[in-house]
Every structure is written in C-alpha cells, then in structure tokens.
C-alpha cells in the first residue's frame, strides 16, 4: 500500500498542491512555519477523517479562500495504490451559505467519487504519525493515552470506531438521565436502558483495549530493548477504570512480593477477560454504584476513564521518567504501532515523521531510519538536511517547502 498522489486546495497554507509521491522515503525540508507539518496533517486528515491538531475544521481552510473564493472551501484528495487497485479519497470542506456568512463548514467525504461517511475512510490509508508533541503520549494526561488508543484501534477496527462513537453518545445522555433522577426515585426501566447501552458498547471497547495493549506490551518492550540496548525493561499496562478482576481473586501475597523484587522472575500479564465476563462485571459495578452515580450526575466507571501505564523496571515513566526516557518510550510505542498495524491489516502503514530526528541521538536515529527503510513508504520532515547522512538522502526523494510551495531539491541548493 502506498500513497501515489496528494492534492491540496486551500488547505492550511497550501493554496494549490499536486504532488506525486514515490514508494520509499520522501524527505521534506523547510524552515519553520513553511508547511512541513501541514503536509503531514493533510495526509493524516485523509487517512482518518479527523484533524489531529486543529480544534475546529475552519482552521484547515486557507485564510485567502475566505476572501477570494466565490464559495470558500478546502480540499484534500489522494490516490492510494494497493494490490494494483487505486482508491481515490477526497474530503471537501465547504462554507455553508457562501462567502461572508458566519455559518459552519460542510464536510463531504468521497471514496472513488461516491459520498461516504468519514468512518468509511478508516483502514484504507493506514498511517503512523509521529509529531514532536507526541511525547505527551507518555508524559501527558490519561486523555492523551485514551486518544492514542482510540485512534490506533479505529484504524484497524471500524467496528471499534462505531462502538466508541455510540459509547460517547450514551455517556452524555446517561449523565443527563442520572441528573434527572436527583432527588427523585429513579425509573428502573430507563436506568436499565442506559446501563445496557453503556455496557454493550463499553464492553467491546474494553475487550479490544485489553487485546491491543497486551500485544503493544510485547512489541513496545522489544522496540524499547533495541533502542536502549537493553537498558531497563519496559511494560505497557492497561489500567481500566472498571475493575476487571475482583480483589478476592487477585494475585496472592507471595506472588505479589515476587513482583516487587527488582527483576521480576517471570512476569505474567493479566489474563484477557472474554466479553461475557466484562459485561457481567460492568453490570454488577453499575448496580453497586447506582446511588453514587445519581448523586454525582455522572458515569463514574467505564472506558472514558481508562488509563494505560508505561512502567520502566516497575516505575511509572510518566512520573518517574526523565524527559529523555519519556521520549524513547514514545518512540518505541510509535515503532511498535507500525508492526501492530501490519499484523492487523496485512499492509504496512504509511509512516509520517515530523521533525523527529533532530531530537534523537545517533543510535536512535539509526534505529528509526532502519524502520523507515523497511516500510513501503515514509515521509519525513526536517529543518536541516544535516540530520541525515548523504547515503540516506541519495536514496530518498528530496523536497523543499517554502511558504506552501514544494520544489524538488536540486544538487546545488544548499
């Protein structure tokens, strides 16, 4: 699978761009604020239907479009080639009601010229995007890790995406329903409906997160081992807000003491609970929490409160890790993600690395470039050609970006 062509109209600082992309490595060099990240963002937008940086889609439209186009709009389109078949993806944002009106933007998603829902884009152009701020995946709040898990799972499982969408809707409605019960006797039938809906969608999400984190744990540990030449043992742990294993059946004391020892002899990851057991636990927990939830007017347990921890020799990297350790873990997670998507979709993702090299030492750069060479297609941005050696650049398609205009690098340009 690779992205053959990308076309932008009025997207961020690109007024018009038509770019053929080769297989293998593409390097885009430019000074700050010239459009390096915007190009990667456009590709990620096409892949997921969502902007990973913008708060509102209005930000995605070039400001000139609001002044000069008869109907302000922005467009991203791309051709994805897989197994000899080209799929054409296209997202168009149009100002509703024409120029100057204050109303919102309309988003139309087309796949091969036919209107589809944004969710139908998922999985056609799988990507792994690594931005410098992705260190927040390790150092940031739990919501950053949930967002990460959701995006990863949505790319490999559309059913997860529709369950997640429904779950989010259920939570807001259920919270309102809980508030409506305050000071009254709750209607058992209504409560049952919202509980069932929460449990149905929540169970799927928890189950998939269990599976994916169990696999991430193995893959990230291996990537981390390579990146650090075996310094420290990394574990990725799922910390669901719903207690999956009741305290009475948890690890006995003797084993617990073993786990606290410096080098755990044999770490056994927690068992993956089958959906019917999750469902049962979830229902039971909701029943015991009923009064508390009505009082709080909020859903107190479920995937919307899940957490994921990165443990380096048993210590949480988020709180105890150095900045450098956090960055290495984030990098290991991203490299593991490439493998995970390969396993799940049977095709390697397009790897998008935004100015990542400059923050890494020599060894880690070499490791990243090793992975970059292995995937069928990777796009890297940089402010400085010097972070790459001449041999690497000789085998890459080199572009320069200046104020939203891309040009091929010629040998004589510095």
């Amino acid at each position, binding site marked *: 699978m690779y992205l053959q062509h990308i076309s932008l109209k009025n997207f961020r600082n690109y007024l018009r761009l038509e770019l053929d992309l080769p297989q293998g490595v593409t390097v885009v060099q430019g000074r700050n604020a010239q459009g390096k990240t915007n190009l990667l963002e456009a590709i990620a937008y096409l892949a997921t239907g969502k902007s990973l940086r913008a708060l509102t889609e209005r930000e995605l439209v070039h400001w000139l479009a609001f002044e000069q186009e008869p109907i302000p709009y922005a467009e991203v389109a791309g051709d994805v080639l897989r197994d000899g078949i080209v799929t054409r993806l296209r997202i168009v944002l149009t100002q509703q009601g024409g120029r100057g009106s204050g109303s919102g933007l309309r988003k139309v998603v087309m796949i091969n010229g036919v209107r589809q829902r944004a969710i139908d884009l998922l999985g056609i152009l799988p990507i792994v995007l690594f931005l410098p701020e992705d260190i927040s995946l390790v150092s940031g709040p739990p919501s950053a890790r949930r967002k990460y898990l959701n995006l990863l799972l949505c790319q490999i499982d559309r059913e997860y995406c529709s369950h997640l969408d*429904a779950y989010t809707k*259920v939570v807001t*409605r259920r919270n309102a329903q809980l*508030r409506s019960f305050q000071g009254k006797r709750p*209607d058992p*039938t209504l409560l049952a*409906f919202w509980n069932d*809906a929460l449990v149905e969608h929540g169970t799927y999400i928890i189950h998939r997160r269990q599976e994916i984190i169990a696999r991430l744990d193995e893959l990230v540990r291996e990537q981390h081992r390579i990146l650090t030449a075996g310094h420290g043992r990394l574990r990725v742990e799922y910390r669901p807000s719903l207690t999956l294993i009741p305290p009475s059946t948890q690890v006995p004391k003797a084993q617990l003491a073993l786990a606290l020892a410096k080098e755990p002899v044999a770490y056994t990851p927690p068992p993956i609970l089958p959906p019917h057991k999750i469902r049962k636990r979830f229902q039971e927990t909701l029943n015991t929490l009923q009064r508390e939830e009505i009082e709080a007017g909020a859903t107190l347990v479920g995937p919307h409160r899940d957490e994921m921890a990165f443990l380096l020799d048993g210590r949480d990297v988020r709180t105890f890790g150095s900045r450098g350790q956090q960055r290495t873990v984030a990098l290991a997670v991203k490299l593991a993600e490439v493998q995970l998507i390969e396993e799940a979709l049977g095709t390697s993702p397009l790897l998008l690395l935004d100015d990542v090299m400059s923050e890494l030492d020599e060894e880690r750069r070499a490791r990243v470039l090793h992975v970059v060479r292995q995937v069928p297609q990777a796009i890297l941005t940089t402010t400085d050609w010097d972070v790459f050696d001449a041999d690497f650049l000789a085998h890459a398609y080199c572009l320069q970006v200046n104020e939203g205009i891309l040009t091929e690098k010629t040998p004589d340009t510095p």
Partner: protein
Amino acid sequence: MSDPIERTIEAFSRLPGIGPKTAARLTYFLLRAPNDVALDLADALKALKEEIHYCRRCFNVAQGELCSICADPGRDQHTICVVEEPLDIVAIERTGAYRGLYHVLHGAINPLANVGPEDLRINELVERVQKEEVREVILATNPNMEGEATAMYIARLLEPLGVRITRLAHGLPIGGDLEYADQQTLAQALEGRRPIS
C-alpha cells in the same frame, strides 16, 4: 413590550429555527405587505389553535374528537403503530401499506432535552393496549439513540400485557447499490435478512 413591532419580533423569535434577525425581517415584511397577508396568517394561526386539537384516542392532529384515522371504521382495529410525531403518520400513510391505527407520542425520551417518559403519551398507550383489542404494537420511533431508548422503554412496559411487539426493520434503501451502502446499514440488513417465500 407594548410596541406591536417589538411584540411581533419577539413572538417570531420564539419559533424554532428563527433568530432575532429573521424575526425582524418577517415582522417588517408583514408590516409592508398588503393587509390580507398578515390577517390571513393571523386567522390561520387562530384557527389552528382553536379548531385543531389532538385526537383523544391516538393524539394525532384532529378536527373533531377523533382524528380521521381513528374515526374510520375500515381501519384494522387490532394493530397500533407508535410514532414520535404526527408528521410520521403522514409519511407512513403515503406508503399505503398500513391499514391499522396509530399512537403519537409527541416526542422521544431525550435526557439531554429533559424529556422523560412522563412527558410523552406513553401511559395513554398502555391504557389503550389494556382496553382495546390490540394484537400487535409496531414501534416506529426513529432509528437513533433517542428513538431506540423510547422503543425499548415501551417494549418493557408492554411485555407483561401479552401483545405482539415489533420494531420497524433497519436496512437497505430500495433502488440502492450494495457497494454504496454504509457498513452499519449493510450489517443490520444482513442480520435482519429473511427467507424469500
């Protein structure tokens, strides 16, 4: 507030989908328009509220005690189709495929808008099922989260009454192409498949 212009603008802006700007535009349009435009509107509104009320049986719009459907002895008296709004009846009637009665809930359970079962005509429905000779209740609420919640709620209430409860099918539009159907619709259509007889 005694200024008629202000009053009219205020009255218009209480309507759904009409903001203060549109309300002002409508008001000044009526001010300049020939007398009969404004007066016809006033008469129509007055008649709407005075002559039209809800059918006491099914809560559809009606000019008499009963709506035209409830008053029609030719309709199948053993089937009730439950809808959210009177407009839904119009849509179903246009199909010509349904010969039973209706029951209009006037909304759906929506905790975000603070609409609970007590705000809907649900108790009246239960009473009808108990008193009339109903064999089947078709739940034709919208296929969204609010509609599903309402359907489920009613189904649980009616279950003990021993009546057949059905829900409208989800599936593919007629004249559509399979390859263009979205995945959720297609999955539900597969689940709800039935033998060709």
